[in-house]
């Protein structure tokens, strides 16, 4: 408290909390006026820059530099930025990947690079786009028939004996899996390279969803 009081008292007196003499101003000397403006945007240049060294050597290096710069732009290492989307995302955009620059324009020696950097060329994607629409339909219709029959049967059975249900469920799951596997195999043939493509492997036509629900309900039944 005392400290603060003293500071304020002094400050009020002369405007400084320390003796001005330490800054190098004489006793009677006027202090410089406070600056209220920002410094000029372009202050006058006091010292001109030194001229650049010239000579044959420098000229040659300069030519080398310009040439090097020009050639680097033409080499395949120059990665061009992807074109920006014009307006909106279109359905057809999906099928137009790979036309532009999904591949590396030069051939790295893959023995020396991490494998994950390899860009898989999606040539299969186009064929898929043609073939695909007919495929799911078939499987769905086939499967739907089967499933309806299956479920009816199962429901009958379940109505008769609920206890044996669990075994059946397993079977059913297996069958379902088999069905799905068929599908998967079909896809796999098309894009063997795309092992890591999560979306494709994880294909779910949504059929299992309702089923599970039903089963769950039935499952829950006896526990009440």
């Amino acid at each position, binding site marked *: 408290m005392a400290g603060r009081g003293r500071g304020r008292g002094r400050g009020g007196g002369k405007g400084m909390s*320390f*003796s001005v*003499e*330490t800054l*190098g101003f004489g006793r009677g000397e006027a202090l410089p006026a406070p600056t209220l403006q920002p410094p000029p945007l372009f202050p006058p240049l*006091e*010292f001109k*820059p*030194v001229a*650049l*060294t010239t000579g044959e*050597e*420098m000229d*040659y*290096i*300069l030519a*080398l*530099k*310009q040439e*090097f*710069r020009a*050639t*680097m732009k033409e*080499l395949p*290492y*120059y*990665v*061009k*930025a*992807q074109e920006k989307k014009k307006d909106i995302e279109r359905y057809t955009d999906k099928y137009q990947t790979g036309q532009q*620059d*999904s591949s*590396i324009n*030069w051939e*790295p*020696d893959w*023995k*020396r*690079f*991490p*494998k*994950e*950097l*390899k*860009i898989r060329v999606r040539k299969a994607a186009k064929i898929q786009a043609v073939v695909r629409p007919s495929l799911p339909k078939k499987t769905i219709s086939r499967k739907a028939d089967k499933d309806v029959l299956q479920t009816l049967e199962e429901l009958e059975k379940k109505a008769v004996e609920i206890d044996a249900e669990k075994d059946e469920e397993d079977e059913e799951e297996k069958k379902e899996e088999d069905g799905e596997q068929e599908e998967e195999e079909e896809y796999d043939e098309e894009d063997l390279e795309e092992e890591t493509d999560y979306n494709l492997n994880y294909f779910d036509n949504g059929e299992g969803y309702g089923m599970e629900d039903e089963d769950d309900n039935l499952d829950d039944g006896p526990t009440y």
Partner: protein
Amino acid sequence: MSSSATRLCFLILKERYGEVVASVACCLAKKNYCPLRMLSQDSGLKLDQVKKALCTLIQHNLVTFQQNKKGFIEYVIHAEKVLQQTRFPRYIYCAKTLYGDPAELIIEELLQHGQMTLEKVVQRTIDRLTEAMEGKQNVSSTLVKEKFVNLVQTHFVQRCTSPDGNVENKEVASMPVLSVSPEELYVVPKMELDGFESRKRKRSGEGSEAASKRIKTDESESSESSIFWRVNVSRFHQYLRDQAIVQAVASKIDKNAAEVVRAMLRLSEVKTDEGALVASAMTVTEVFQNLPREFGISKQTIEQYMKLLSEDSSEFVSKVSDSGGGMYVINFKKLITVLCRAHIESAVQERFGSKCFRIFRLLLMKKNLEQKQIEEYAMIPSKEAKELLYRMFEEKFVSLTEVPKTPDHAPSRTFYLFSVNINQVSRMLLERCYQACGNLIIRREHETKENRRLLDKQQRVDAITASMEQSGADPSQKEEIEQMITPPEKAQLTKIKHMTNKIEHSELQLDDTIFILQTYLQYAHMK
């Protein structure tokens, strides 16, 4: 890394490899270590683009990769190598002065492609040489290969790290383990040199009737050599450092002294290893024997020069013992410090004028001085001296230490000592150089962008006239085409050319300063 250095990195990479690569590199530089997925997320770029960018960066020795404990592959960028890219023209020039045109092209090719096999380098060099000579003279591959071996033997070119020979491992692992043994780093295997004929013959010889087809496929197989080569940047830096030292001696003493120092440096090149602070000791006789005869300097003169050099204030050469007629060494660290100091001093002189320079040198000489003392020693009126000193202090060329007489740090009872910290000042200057270099690149880009239309037009006209020349068209037609560029456009074009030339010129010269500052800081770290 500082923000100005990052900015410069971005600009350099953008110019060389495109914006995608640059932004990937900058993201990486911020992270230090980063796996692929995260990189794509952070940069906001598509995965494929990031992959491409990383491939380019790895190819140019700017990024390396390693596996972390969790099995991810992490990428590391070497920002200092990115900054060195501005020095490429100088390396190429070095190679030219040392080993002639073929070496120049070899280095240029290697720098353009980052890593290359010997065969490809040789092939491309030969192609370009023949092109330059317009087919008048046949360039033999043995000459080019000889140059290549020269470059490797003098360590200007080195082997890249290559995957381990363990084949089983390669199949399983997601990334190759790259390594190279230090003994092999500068060895060109004979197999590579002999060309691929001998190998081919061996292979086709074992099959009975391999037929020409078989040989052809063999050829394509064997051309996939697994040894890649790259430019050894640090060797070039060593050479540039030596050049700078020789130049300094020449300007301080005379040409003969420079030759003596050059001979000493050449001797030390063989004896001392790369990172040494001090070259190994050598006798006067050794220096004499190494000096080319045409200078006609006698042994006595060399002794005198040695004395002169060792007694000079910058102490280019120091005497370590009297045995064998005097053993002398070159202290690189000291010399680079002297060079760096000279650079800083000239910066002060050009920036603040000669009076400030006087104060600055005074501080360098006397280390710590009070304000009053500075005024006295520099013999500058107190008011002016204060202004000058504070200006330097404001721009951080001069630092201040408070030495309180009493523990309460009262200003009236405190000594204010001004001093110069060379290390800190060179760091600050280096930052400014990076900033300036970045500004230059931006300015140049801006100028070309503004005049893109005109430049394109000129390019088109040039292409048309060139094609007309080839087809042997009428000169009047040619003239007509050339007149497509109007006189004011022509004037504008020359103006642009002059401007870009000047800007690039400044970039190169700025890089010289950057080189000295970097080298000094590098030596300052090694103790």
